[in-house]
Every structure is written in C-alpha cells, then in structure tokens.
C-alpha cells in the first residue's frame, strides 16, 4: 500500500453459511482512477463492495480506504466513501430534494452548505427542474440519477458504484457513464462493478475480473487482452447437434478452444481468416451446416472465456 492508493484490499474473505462468497481477494485502486470489478452475477462483486462500504463485516482480511482500515476505523472510512447501491435506495414518498437533504444530513452536512450541495447535486444529475416532485413519480433512469446523487453530496474521495446501469434505458445509461467519467475528471476515485463488458472497457483505467468469489485477473484493458494472446472469437450456429462437429474442430490446427453455450458454438482461434474455411470444411464432412457466423476481435469477453471456460453472461 502506498500513499497513492485510494483502496487497498488485502485478502478479504466472506462466507454466507457454508457458501464462500469472496475467497481471499487482493487488489489496489490508485487515487483518481476508475477501477472496474467485472464478473457474472454471483461472482462476489456486491459482497466485496458491501464489505468496503461497511455493510458487511469481513470474515477475514482487511481493506483500507485512503489508508483507513474498514475494520478498525469504519466510521472514518465510511465518511470518505459515497456508495451507490445496486438497488434504488431512496424514499419514494419524498421529493428528490427532500431525499438529498435527508441523506446529506446523514453524511454530516447541514445548514447553508447542505443546501448548496443539494443544489449542485441536482444540477449534476440534471433534475433541478423536477426537484420538488416525489421520487415515486420518476422514471427508472431518473431514480438511478437521484440514487447516484445521494452518494455525491458530501464530495467523497471515493465513489463505489454497484452495477448502477442495471435495468435502465440506453439514454439513462449513457448519462450515468458520462457522469462517472465527469466525476473522475473532477478527481474522484471510482470503484465500479458491472457485468457489462462494454462498460468496463469504456470507462476503466484498471479492470479486475471476478468469478466464484475469486479475482482471476487484474490489469488494464490492453494487459488483459494480452493474457489471452489476442485471439479472435468466432460464434457459430449449426443446423444440428454440435457435439460431433466440436470434436472435429478441436483437432484443427490454429483452434485454441471450442465451447458451447446458448445454442451456439464459440471457437477461439489465432487467425479467423485462416481458420474459418477449415471450420466449414470439417462441418461439411460430417454433413452439418453452419447457419450463421459472427467474428469478434479479442475483448474482455474473450478473456473471461479463456480464463474460466464459460461466457461472461452465463
């Protein structure tokens, strides 16, 4: 841990009953960066964030927020963080302004400073004109924006966002992603969890990939891509059961991995132009037709597939 580290996670463990949710993860988030935790549902992202935001006590290990232990100085650590929970956690029967005023008080603000911060936050989330309306009357995207606004009121040094774009329209998603980048430009460190590869790829300085409670890879986008050797990913749909043809494809030269999911077959290969004719030929020999082909250049999905043997969305 250095003085430039905003978050230092050290061997965190958490079990729910006999089920391990987080198993000894360790990572560092530098000050002023956007760090994404990427992984499928159930990977342990929310549990990790719950421990960092003081909601859940770790079974083992510790984490430090701006140098303050979440176990020994939880009150101080919590004051440095703004948490945006996955679910919308607002009072629906209060107006947007009333919500912000209340949450501001919970973060220790008061008087003229509180009112000023509320006005600024309403400006940031673009709801100044509707501040007196009850949150219950807002669209899902607007509620999400208020949800984020609550975490920004006390100008935290670290903002932790737990899948803030789940279940919202593309316009609101765009607004939220732009807001995250803007907050980062203003100097806030952002810890962002998502299971959308594109989001992590777009906004993150560093990405950690989680699966089954473990951190399986961590680095910049380019570093993670290099992990899988910059392979191309081909998704093919067949007109018959793929079991036999998958065996043939596995033996072809240049094919790195063949897997099956959601009714199609995924092939990882070094050179898609070279391998594609061979795939058609092998399928033809056993009288199987390829009905569609989609080629993807190496990305985080490919990385996840390579590291876990399953697709990120599974």
């Amino acid at each position, binding site marked *: 841990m250095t003085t430039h580290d905003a978050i230092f996670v050290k061997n965190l463990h958490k079990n729910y009953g006999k089920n391990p949710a987080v198993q000894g993860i360790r990572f560092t988030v530098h000050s002023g960066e956007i760090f994404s935790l990427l992984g499928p549902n159930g990977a342990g992202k929310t549990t990790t964030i719950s421990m960092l*935001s*003081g*909601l859940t006590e770790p079974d083992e290990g510790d984490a430090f927020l701006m140098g303050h232990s979440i176990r020994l100085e939880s*009150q*101080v650590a*919590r*004051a440095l*963080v703004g*948490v945006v*929970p996955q*679910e*919308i*956690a*607002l*009072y*629906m*029967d*209060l107006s947007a302004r*009333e919500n912000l005023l*209340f*949450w501001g*008080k*919970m*973060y*220790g603000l*008061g008087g003229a400073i509180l009112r000023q911060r509320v006005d600024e936050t309403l400006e940031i989330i673009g709801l100044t004109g509707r501040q007196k309306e009850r949150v219950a009357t807002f669209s899902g995207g607007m509620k999400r924006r208020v949800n984020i606004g*609550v975490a920004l009121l006390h100008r935290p040094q670290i903002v932790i966002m737990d899948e803030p774009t789940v279940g919202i329209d593309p316009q609101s998603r765009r607004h939220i992603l732009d807001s995250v980048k803007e907050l980062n430009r203003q100097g806030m460190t952002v810890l962002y969890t998502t299971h959308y590869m594109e989001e992590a790829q777009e906004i993150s300085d560093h990405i950690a990939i989680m699966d089954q409670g473990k951190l399986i890879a961590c680095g910049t986008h380019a570093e993670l891509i290099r992990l899988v050797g910059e392979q191309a990913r081909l998704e093919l749909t067949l007109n018959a059961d793929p079991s036999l043809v998958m065996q043939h494809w596995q033996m072809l030269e240049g094919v790195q991995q063949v897997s099956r999911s959601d009714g199609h077959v995924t092939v990882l290969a070094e050179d898609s132009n070279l391998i594609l004719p061979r795939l058609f030929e092998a399928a033809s020999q056993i009288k199987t037709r390829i009905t569609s082909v989609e080629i993807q250049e190496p990305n985080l999905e490919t990385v996840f597939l390579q590291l876990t043997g399953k697709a990120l969305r599974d």
Partner: protein
Amino acid sequence: MKMIAIALKDIKQSFRSFFAVGMMLGAPLLITGLIYFAFSGLTSGKAGSDLPTLKVAVVNLDRPAANQQNFGALLITFLNDKRMPDWLHTSELPDESTTRSEIDRQEIGAAVIVPVDFSSSILSANGSTGITILQDPTLTIGPSVLKDLLTQFTDGINGGKIAVTVASSQLASNGVKVNSAMQQGIIQNYSNWYSDLSTDIHHGQEPELVVQPPHLQSSTPVASSGTNPVANMMAQIMAGMLIFFAFFTGAYAAQSILREDENGTLPRLFSTPTQRSTILAGKLLAVFSIVLVQSIVLMTLASIAFHINWGQPLSTTLVVLGQVVAASGFGILLISLVKNSRQAGAVVGGVISSTGLLGGLFSASVPNMPGFFNNITHFTPQGWVMDGWKAALAGNPAGQTIPTFLVLLFIGIFFFAAGSVIFSRRFA
C-alpha cells in the same frame, strides 16, 4: 441531530401516507362518530335541546293536611329542577278553566292538573289518585317527554309508598308502631336505593333525579353538571378507540424499520458515517412522536366533535404519556419479532385486536363484566391504559392515575429495551 433528522423524516412519511392517516385518525373518529350519531343529542347533556320551547302550566289544587307531605308542591319543584331540559318552562296557574283557555289560545303547550286529594291519597293506605295532563293537540314530542318525566316522578312516589307500606307492615308485625319520623327515614332509604339502581341501569356514575322529601334535598349530593350517562359511555368508547389505534399506530410506525430494510434504505443508512445506535434511536423517537401526535390530535378532535370531557389536565397528561410509551414499546417489540413487512401486516392485526379485546377496549362501557375478565385485562398493556382512562374520565386527581402511569412506563420501557436488543442483534 441525525437522530432527530431520522425521526422527522419518518413522521413526514407517516403523515403523507393516506393509509396511515386513515388508520391513525380517520378510523377511530369514524367509528366513534357512528356511535355518537346513533345517540345523537343525548351525548351533550342537553337532550333535545333543538326542540321548541314547551310552556307547561301546573295547576296545583293539592290541599294536604297539616304536617302532611305536600306532593303537589314537590311536583312543581321537580319540574323546575335545573336539570330539566332547557326547552321546558314551568309556571303555575290557579285553576283548570283558565288553563284550558290558555291551551286553546296556544299560550301554553301543556298543563298538569294536580287534584285536591293528591297528597292525602298517596299517604293513605288504600288511596288512589292521578295527575291529569292537558296538551295542545298540535304538539307531540314535547308533551311526550313531559309525560315520561311525570311517570318517573310518580314511579318514585309509588315506590316510596310501597316501601313505607311494606316496612310499616313488617315493623308492625314485630310490635313496632311506625310514626311520621320513621316514615321519613324509610322514604330516604328508598330514595338512596332508587338512586343506586338508576345509576346501575344507565351504566353511569350520575344518579337520575330522585324524589325526596324537601328537607332532605339540600343535603343530597348533586351530580356534576354538563354530562350524562350516555356522554360518559361515549367518553369510554372514545378512550377505547384511542388506545386501540394508538397501539396499532405504534406497531405500524415501527414497521418502517422492516420496510426500510426491504427497500434498501436501511443498509444505505448503515453505509453512511452514522452509528447504528443513532439510527435505531431515531426510529424509536419517530414511533413515540407519531403515537403522541396521534393521541393529541384525536383527543382534541373528539372533544370538539363529541363534547368529550377528558378529565383533569394533569391526570389526562399522565394517562396519555403512559399510553404513548406503552404503545410505542409494544409496537417496537412486536415488530422486532416478525421477519418482514408482509408477515407484520397479519401479525399486527391479530395481536393488536386480540390484546385489545382482552384488555377490555371493546367492553369498556359494558357494566357488570365478570370478575375474571377484569383480572385478565391486566395481562395486557391496553388493560392498564384503560384503567388509567377510567380514572381520568371519572375526574379523579393526578394522584390516582400515577400508579397506572408508573406501570405503563415500566411496561413501555421494558418492551422498548427488549425490542431494541432484538433489532440490534438482527442488524449487527
């Protein structure tokens, strides 16, 4: 400050909820209002005050013997009593013919003719007499009420006469000769008994008008004015409603802890730099405040709408505080024992209704409840609150409500503490 902010937020949310306001204020007022209108007019102690004035003339022809009770004069005193309805104006006229002509000219609405032998017939062993009522045929309600009043008067006299006859006969069989002084004593005893009987029949603490010899009237305690048995009954019904809905509100307000947990706002509160004990204290303060506001508003509205006199201010204050503490504590403990707000709906309804029933909230105005039932009521906090209200409504001073207040304070604090411990462990 954070604790107060949490409490104020909860209070604001509660009073913005149509359901909560309906159950806190609307339902108890509506139920009591329906009962009130069923007994409309009787509750104010001014029964029939909207009736037009009835001028009644009494022609007292009664000529009792010397040293004999003058029942004709007693009747006039009875009709002029200050507890008679405001619309009944009684005067005297000298003879029946004048009276009839005044009725014909509609200068008076009714007349009561007391015969010459009225007193002597009453006091003779086998005498028989009667009062004649004349009335304007265009009037109905006023003369009917007058007739009922005169029936009450004569029932009292007849009862007294029977009492004297029976007592004289029993004393004579034992060789005792009954003189005038002894007869007066018998009449007084009968009057006392009749007073108690009337009290019990009307389930109230105020005796009906009692026929008594004139020399006893000055020493007879006069009941407090401005109330009547039905008004007392209304006050007890409203007190029952007040208690029932205070306990319901206590539990409903405490449910906000479960609702916040389910909506994610409680975990979010825990992620702020606010101590969990402060958050819980804020929630408890909110429950207490909501029940207190509800009690004050309900009592004020009930006083205005139903003319309920809640008793001496200090006694009432002690009972209200005891009620609020007990209801809040009970609500916190009850909600701490349920898993979620869905389960809480059924549990709160069932527990509050059953403990309210056992606490005697729905039978407060029913007389002569079995003794064991009165004992059972003290196994519920509602029963203790009802005890406090009965004492306050009877006009008792604060000294008599302090023991009940202390019991309620203990119950409330104990429940508060138990509920808080359970919640603290749950959200640790």
